[in-house]
């Protein structure tokens, strides 16, 4: 490369300036500063690790305490290392409450919401990004404006509507109101806007109709944003508590969070370990999703922060 001589010059200069180098890089000579800096780094790492352990400790405590005998479960100090893990707490969860029902309901409800949102938002996001029709902008902004409405501000009319449709105390009543969302539409639209227009135009020239342009070309490319939307919706609705509390009344229709609170109320403080076993069980699916879709989840959570 042409800058080889220049490199030689700089090395030559460096060698010549070797005497002044110590002055230019004070850390190298002044050992005190170096030591202080290393010490600072060690302190920082120790602090950071302490905070990290502190943050994780309630979760770890939950796991180890779920393995103690119900009688011991509320005695201190906690058994940080389970020497005699008692797995029967986990089967006790199933015998005390209809836990299989909770699990199944959570999977059904969350699954339907996730799939539903992926479909509706993919369709509308594409239309708002790629199709031209009268009123597109005002309609889009009207949809977007509903993002500002907190769910609690609408919960009473939504509850009355759901009751009117005969969907009170049904899984459908929980699914239907959130199958389409403004956030999902916005997210999908942003991604479709980034896709090259030429793809669709080329397909149209080749004789593809509108549905084929959408379904065969753009929808096929929308995998990553759809995964992001799906993971976000999963995290939100798997953990949802407020709406299930209001919309469901029969325990066999409860979702996990509601079921766990029921379990806690049912067992009282008598057997903490059994309640915690239920908490651990409800956490497993989310942890699995997190392991496989960490990047998508992070992407979804930071979406919107870029533009400020």
């Amino acid at each position, binding site marked *: 490369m042409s800058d080889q001589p220049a490199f030689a010059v700089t090395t030559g200069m460096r060698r010549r300036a070797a005497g002044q180098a110590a002055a230019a890089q004070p850390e190298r000579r002044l050992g005190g500063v170096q030591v202080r800096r290393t010490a600072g780094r060690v302190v920082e790492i120790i602090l950071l690790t302490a905070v990290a352990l502190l943050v994780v400790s309630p979760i770890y405590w939950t796991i180890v305490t779920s393995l103690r005998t119900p009688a011991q479960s509320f005695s201190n100090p906690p058994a940080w290392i389970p020497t005699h893990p008692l797995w029967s707490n986990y089967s006790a969860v199933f015998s005390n409450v209809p836990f299989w029902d909770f699990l199944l309901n959570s999977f059904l409800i969350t699954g339907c919401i996730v799939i539903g949102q992926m479909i509706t938002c993919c369709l509308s996001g594409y239309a708002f990004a790629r199709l031209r029709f009268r009123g597109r902008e005002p309609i889009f902004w009207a949809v977007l404006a509903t993002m500002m*409405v907190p769910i609690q501000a609408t919960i009473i009319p939504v509850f009355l509507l759901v009751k009117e449709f005969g969907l009170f105390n049904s899984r459908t009543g929980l699914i239907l109101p959130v199958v389409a969302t403004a956030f999902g539409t916005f997210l999908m639209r942003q991604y479709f806007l980034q896709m090259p227009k030429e793809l669709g135009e080329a397909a149209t020239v080749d004789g593809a109709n509108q549905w084929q342009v959408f379904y065969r070309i753009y929808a096929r490319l929308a995998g990553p944003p759809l995964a992001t939307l799906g993971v976000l919706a999963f995290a939100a609705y798997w953990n949802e508590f407020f709406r299930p509390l209001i919309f469901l009344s029969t325990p066999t229709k409860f979702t996990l969070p509601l079921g766990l609170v029921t379990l806690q109320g049912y067992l009282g403080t008598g057997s903490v370990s059994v309640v915690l076993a239920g908490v651990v069980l409800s956490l497993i699916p989310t942890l699995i999703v997190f392991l496989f879709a960490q990047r998508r989840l992070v992407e979804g959570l930071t979406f919107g922060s870029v533009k400020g």
Partner: protein
Amino acid sequence: MALALPRRHARTAGAKTGTDLHRRRETRFAWLLILPTILGVGLFTAVPIVGSFVLSLFNYSIISPTKWVGLANYSALLHDSNAQHAFVVTIILTVGIAIAQVVVGLALAVAVQRRTGWARSLYRAAFFVPLLVSGASVSIVMSYIFDSQFGVLNYYLGLIGLPQVSWLDSTWGAIFTVMIVVTWQQLGFTFIVFSAALGAVPRELTEAARVDGAGGWRVFRKITLPMISPSILFTVTVGVINQLQLFDQPYVLTHGGPGNATQTVVLDIYEQAFQNLRFGYASAISVILFIVVLVATFLQFRISRRWVFYS
């Protein structure tokens, strides 16, 4: 672009009716695609927000006849010290949590940013994991940990010689507990957002400042902080909107207590509507909550013009 334009013009000139047909088809197709979203969002968000306002003008309960009361529900709110208390508590919790989340999340993001390799991934996972636990589960777990008599927390506080705190049995204890628990749980959100923002700060900028002799703290204050200020605005806005609607933690952890110490607005709405069946009155509270959310968001964006830096 320069090439595409003339061709499109040629097509429009050539087959005017064809284009009209095409446009009509595109419109019909577009409407087909947005129909589910329009129906869903319209029926379950747009109509209900109007519905909340309309309901707030009635005495409405499922068991007694509906009666028009005008603004009586709102004037009743002026004399309802319980509801006013709920707004005060909610605002205290919101402000406390928002500050804690930003400060702690940012400090941790900065510290983790300096680590590399597997250590960084491990720290990230540690700070992120609480976000995956449901508010209900977290509250169940924390109700045991923060228990004043038998809780692990007070046990260790006693062990290192600190006084026992009546976390859940005193007014401020309960408020702080809810703050700590929510901050702990949602730390992952601010942490992740700040991590992404810090990663996007150009290294040339910070390095140039360092070469010019600026110390670490000054580089952070003068360069890093302005560069990531949009993400601070983002986390504060999202956090405030979320916390104004706080429900799960106070409901499960403190039941709004002791007394009504942690009775948030949404807890109040829930009790008025679904326990006392005063749907009209509860709607009035939810309308006020909606207005508070809007005003808070608007104010943040107004004030942000002074401190948020857009490159």
